[in-house]
């Protein structure tokens, strides 16, 4: 783990105006995340996890506070610059996969690269195949999204998040819709990516998963209530192997 701060947020607030009411989803959140950390973010429903992750993913902007991604202030960027940051530096995995319907895994994974003119068709294909290989889907290159199981679709979504070689991978309840066994196989995948030096921020409901990350942040009502370092994360692979097989 290097000492470089990849994410620095300082007193982030996010208010939503609904009618006459203002919902304070985040009420001053500050932390630093170093390159190569595997952070889980937990908290009860409505505590502001998704709101925080969307801000970290440059999908949303805070009402106030400072956000430096890789040393650059996100607030000062234009809409288009943020789009380019999302395209080049961030891999986002959604809870409900968000794959293009009726589209093959390969085409889905290639999609971020289509919005980056630095890659030609051949390079796109090679990288997409590599990313699908990394998530163990080398046999499903030409399957359409609706022809695959939830776990497989989530793997395609993870491959899509990996394909642009992002600085950080953000996952919002990436295992929320999956059964225990599949959840653990996805978690194993994230641990492998982490082992290869990726920075990962993983939002989850499930308190058990804190054991498998290197750091755990807990939110309540838009504030951080705990931030603990886990020196010895458990192995998801071991847990996966220990699970009864008949669930498969």
């Amino acid at each position, binding site marked *: 783990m290097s000492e470089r701060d990849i994410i620095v947020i300082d007193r982030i607030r996010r208010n939503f105006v609904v009618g006459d009411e203002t919902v304070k989803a985040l009420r001053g959140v500050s932390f630093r995340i170093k390159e190569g950390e595997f952070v889980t973010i937990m908290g009860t429903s409505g505590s502001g996890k998704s709101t925080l992750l969307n801000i970290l993913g440059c999908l949303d902007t805070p009402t106030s506070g400072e956000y430096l991604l890789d040393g650059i202030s996100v607030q000062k960027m234009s809409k288009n610059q943020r789009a380019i940051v999302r395209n080049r530096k961030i891999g*986002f995995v959604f809870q409900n996969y*968000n794959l293009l319907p009726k589209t093959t895994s390969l085409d889905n994974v290639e999609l971020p690269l289509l*919005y980056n003119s630095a890659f030609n068709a051949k390079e796109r294909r090679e990288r997409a195949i590599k990313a699908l290989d990394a998530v163990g889907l080398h046999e499903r290159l030409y399957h359409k999204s609706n022809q695959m199981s939830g776990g497989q679709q989530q793997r395609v979504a993870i491959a899509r998040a990996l394909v642009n070689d992002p600085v950080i991978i953000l996952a919002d309840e990436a295992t929320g819709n999956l059964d225990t066994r599949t959840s653990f196989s996805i978690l194993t995948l994230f641990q492998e990516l982490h082992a290869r030096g990726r920075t990962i921020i993983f939002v989850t409901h499930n308190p058990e998963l804190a054991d498998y990350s290197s750091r755990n942040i807990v939110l309540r009502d838009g504030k951080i209530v705990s931030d603990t370092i886990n020196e010895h994360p458990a192995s998801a692979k071991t847990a996966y192997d220990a699970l009864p097989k008949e669930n498969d």
Partner: protein
Amino acid sequence: MRFVNLLKIALRALNNNKLRCFLTMLGIIIGVASVITMLAIGQGSKNSIKAQISEMGSNMLMIFPGSGQRGGVRQSADDMQTLKVEDYEVIRDNAKFVSAISPQVSSAGQFVNGNNNYPSQLSGITPDYLNIRKLNVDEGEMFSDHDIATAAKVCVVGRTVVNELFPNGENPLGKVIRFNKIPLTIVGVLEEKGTNSMGQDQDDVVLAPYTTVMKRVLAIDYIQGLFASALNENLSDEASDEITQLLRANHKLKDEAEDDFQIRSQQELSEMMSSTSDMMTVLLACIAGISLLVGGIGIMNIMYVSVTERTREIGLRMAIGARGIDILSQFLIEAIIISVTGGIIGILVGVLASWLVNVIMQWPVYIQAYSVLLSFVVCTVTGVFFGWYPARKAANLDPIEAIRYE
């Protein structure tokens, strides 16, 4: 490179929505095809009227007895007898702008050759009539001025009359046919002209010296009309003025008296007819324009629905790095592909439909390059315009709101 990628994205998106794509195109196809077909029919009929008129001689003038000022009220027999043979001679001898003139008297009746009967019309004229009406004698020859002087019992017949009276294909030349018991020797057969655009058989004619018809058939001392040719098309007004002067002088009309004859020029007729057909073309173009507009609204509708329907997709694309301009371009490219493809198919369908109208209905059609271009441009512009609006809406979406859209 960027454009190629966007093209690829748009093509994949279209490929995933074939039915929607086809339905959108259908509106354009129908719009373009109907514009082309309608304009082809309108222009075709206009052209055929024009051709017909120039075939009849565009410098032709017709002079009728009677003032014609009394609208629909039928004029008395006296009013209809104002033109005399002397009027013909005065114009023939004095008019400088008239190149040919012929009196005209006619009588309808039964022509008989042995057992064969055929009802037709006998027209009394002079040989000049052939020039005026652009007729030619095919076999035999035209009767002569001598025949006119002697009121000879001769005639020149059209092909239809020949076929009716000589069904076995005998040579009609020199044969004698009867009209109201009067024997007429056939001296010539007219070249075939076929049916004109109003459905009249132009070969259903029998021509004889006007003197013969006046004295031997009708026993009258007036003529029913005059056919004349102006020196050329542009002089038909001058010719008409000149004839008016000559006739007024000859009829000794006082200055304040109105003409006791009327002159119709072919030009007038042709203007009248082409204005009618212009009106029809405009009407057809309006109908076609409406269907094009409906097609355009169809595109907008489907584009709009598709943006709403694809809000999540747009949100996803933005989340993984598409900029507003990329989304706008993608939707615009989709709209252009749909409207251009629809336009091209529409042109093909329109040409095919025009051809079918021509073959099946026997209507004259004429496809002008401008109508093809016009409908194509209009449909592409409508497609792009109506595609642009929802595309811009899509491009301005907030990624997080779009991706949450249900």
